[in-house]
């Protein structure tokens, strides 16, 4: 009896503990392993061109690849579909300070999400700035926030973010923003950047978030939010009503829905979720983090691939994925200062059971 009591207490404490450590073991078990391999030395740079922490990665409809990364300056690079460096976009523009993610919309516009300036910057395929949302505070105002560190404030302003994390688009061109470290919400704008709606605050109930860190939409306009601190994916409908939680795949640093942003019907879509190795690369969690889950949109787990590590095909720390082609996953990694092109092999394993 006493043994049982201790177990119950320990289980009750577990969620609080995982909240603090921000990285928990995925609760799904008996998950089939999807064979995968990394294309060796895929990304190629001219001499003297480096990437730093690779925070964001996205492909356009032609297969070109964009990587948003933290180097000496935060920079946005473009590569051919074969991994050759093409050019830099947006060099030293006012919206770049600390990269967080990058996405490509249905018209192949490139959206950089910067958590240093609290801004979204929309580039035309050519590289011109078409629109911004959010606003960088001027240096004098920023000083009032020094010396930094910061914390959740939940200001929930229509056109200002609190270190927002990611952006997604539906078939009507509406814009969905996960916001972020200092806010705990999802914000919807129309295609002209006009505020429509915001939901959420910090917490662990439905429509509450603890660092919504990544966001994706499916072809029907449903919204998948990587609610990282709460170790779940929250699914919302297009009007930001709550639909479901997928609580069994660890802490989702990155979510991705296959098929691209449209407008072509992508057919069957899959959801990818990365339970990333924490960005300080601690030895302990390396044993139970780092894997990526492939799921049906309804949350059924199909399989998983990868593990924490620094070798080719291992991940440290996946911060964003591109999965336009469900069998070709691009991963942007913080600790390894790299991105990888991952090929998924046809799996013979059947859909695994889950708890």
């Amino acid at each position: 009896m006493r043994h049982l009591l201790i177990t119950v207490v320990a289980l009750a404490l577990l969620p609080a503990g995982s909240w603090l450590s921000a990285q928990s073991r995925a609760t799904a078990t008996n998950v089939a392993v999807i064979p995968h391999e990394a294309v060796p030395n895929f990304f190629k740079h001219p001499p003297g061109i480096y990437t730093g922490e690779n925070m964001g990665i996205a492909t356009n409809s032609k297969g070109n690849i964009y990587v948003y990364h933290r180097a000496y300056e935060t920079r946005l690079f473009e590569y051919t579909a074969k991994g050759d460096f093409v050019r830099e976009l947006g060099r030293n523009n006012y919206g770049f300070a600390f990269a967080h993610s990058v996405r490509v919309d249905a018209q192949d516009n490139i959206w950089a999400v910067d958590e240093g300036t609290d801004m979204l910057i929309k580039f035309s395929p050519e590289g011109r700035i078409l629109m911004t949302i959010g606003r960088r505070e001027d240096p004098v105002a920023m000083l009032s926030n020094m010396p930094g560190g910061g914390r959740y404030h939940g200001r929930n302003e229509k056109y200002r973010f609190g270190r927002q994390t990611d952006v997604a688009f539906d078939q009507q061109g509406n814009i969905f923003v996960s916001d972020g470290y200092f806010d705990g919400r999802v914000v919807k704008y129309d295609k002209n950047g006009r505020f429509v709606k915001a939901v959420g605050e910090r917490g662990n109930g439905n429509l509450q978030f603890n660092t919504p860190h990544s966001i994706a939409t499916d072809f029907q306009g449903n919204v998948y939010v990587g609610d990282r601190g709460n170790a779940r994916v929250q699914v919302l409908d297009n009007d930001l009503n709550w639909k479901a939680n997928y609580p069994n795949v660890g802490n989702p640093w990155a979510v991705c829905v296959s098929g691209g942003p449209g407008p072509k019907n992508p057919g069957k879509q899959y959801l990818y979720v990365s339970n990333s190795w924490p960005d300080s690369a601690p030895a302990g969690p390396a044993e139970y983090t780092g894997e990526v889950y492939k799921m049906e949109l309804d949350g059924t787990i199909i399989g998983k691939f990868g593990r924490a590590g620094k070798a080719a095909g291992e991940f440290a720390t996946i911060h964003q994925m591109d999965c336009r082609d469900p069998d070709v996953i691009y991963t942007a990694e913080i600790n390894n200062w790299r991105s990888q092109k991952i090929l998924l092999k046809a799996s013979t394993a059947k859909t695994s059971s889950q708890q």
Partner: protein
Amino acid sequence: MSRLISTIAVAVLALGGSLLGQSGVSELAFTSTDLLRTPVEGPFVGEVAGVGANSKGQIFVYTRTGHPYATLGDNRTFSRGGSKLFLFDANGKFVREWGQDVYGFNAAIGLRVDPQDNVWTIDAAANQVVKFNADGAIGLVLGRKPETIPVRPNAPASPPSPSSPTSPATPAPGAKPAGMGTPGSGFNRPTDVAWDKAGNIYVADGIGTNNRIAKFDKDGRFLAHWGSTGSGPGQFSGVKAIALDAQGNVYAADAGNKRIQVFDGDGKFLREITNIGTPLAMCMTRGGTQHLYVSHAGDQDGMDDAAIYKVALDGRIVGKFGAAGKQLKEFGLANSIDCRNENELLVGEMTNWRVQKVSLK
């Protein structure tokens, strides 16, 4: 009978006219283009704090772009960067950067071109007004950039309270940098500059704690200042723009009090102009009958409530145009208006990172 009808008609017309004056301002028809073109690889125009054209049609843009840096020094932290001055041709094509690496470019807040084609930049972080001669050399410096920025150890240990997240920053206690908040040239977040026919200089000072107009002679010698914080005549709640008419009267955009105050050149209060919303930028036309263009920004992001008013100098509202938003013919914090040509304006926007060329019908 017909006389009665015409009397009624006149009465109705008069009533209608007064109703129009009270309930709605007539909309001025206009077209607009997104004017500026920079190379696709950069440099990039960011928030447009100031735009102005010279007599040759060349266009100067003072913009927040690039990055503000903090440099670690001996026990202090220094700031630099974050704003640039660009030159464009009359068609909006990028020509070159002006004043590259100028010390005081930090947080652009305004730009004006004077009648002699000198270019004046106003910086809200450097607390400076800098005059560039037409050839690009620096001709006059008003105010001094703070030596250091109070990153540490004077900054509060915890973030500021969420209740006032977006109000202008107040320096941490004991951290007031040199050159702030004193009479004479000590500006505190100045916003704008204007001149009279003698070349005397009037500085709107500004959106910090000074809430005053400062007057200098053409060589930059301090002459006088007036104003304090408040809502009475001669008091301000954020002086965001300044303009002078041909008689030397001074028009000051008093944003927090939703009015324009009019003074003579010595600071004597004359009158106020209201019903122009929350004034952000102003431009005085140069024709025989002068008008003021006044941009109104009713929200902090320029997404809910905005317009540009055309106002007669007696305060009568001629009309208005534009709305809030990100599309063409919408204005996202129109912080600067050039009206060298009365019916062809250059409007610089902060949140939309652009200059629109506005043609009024």
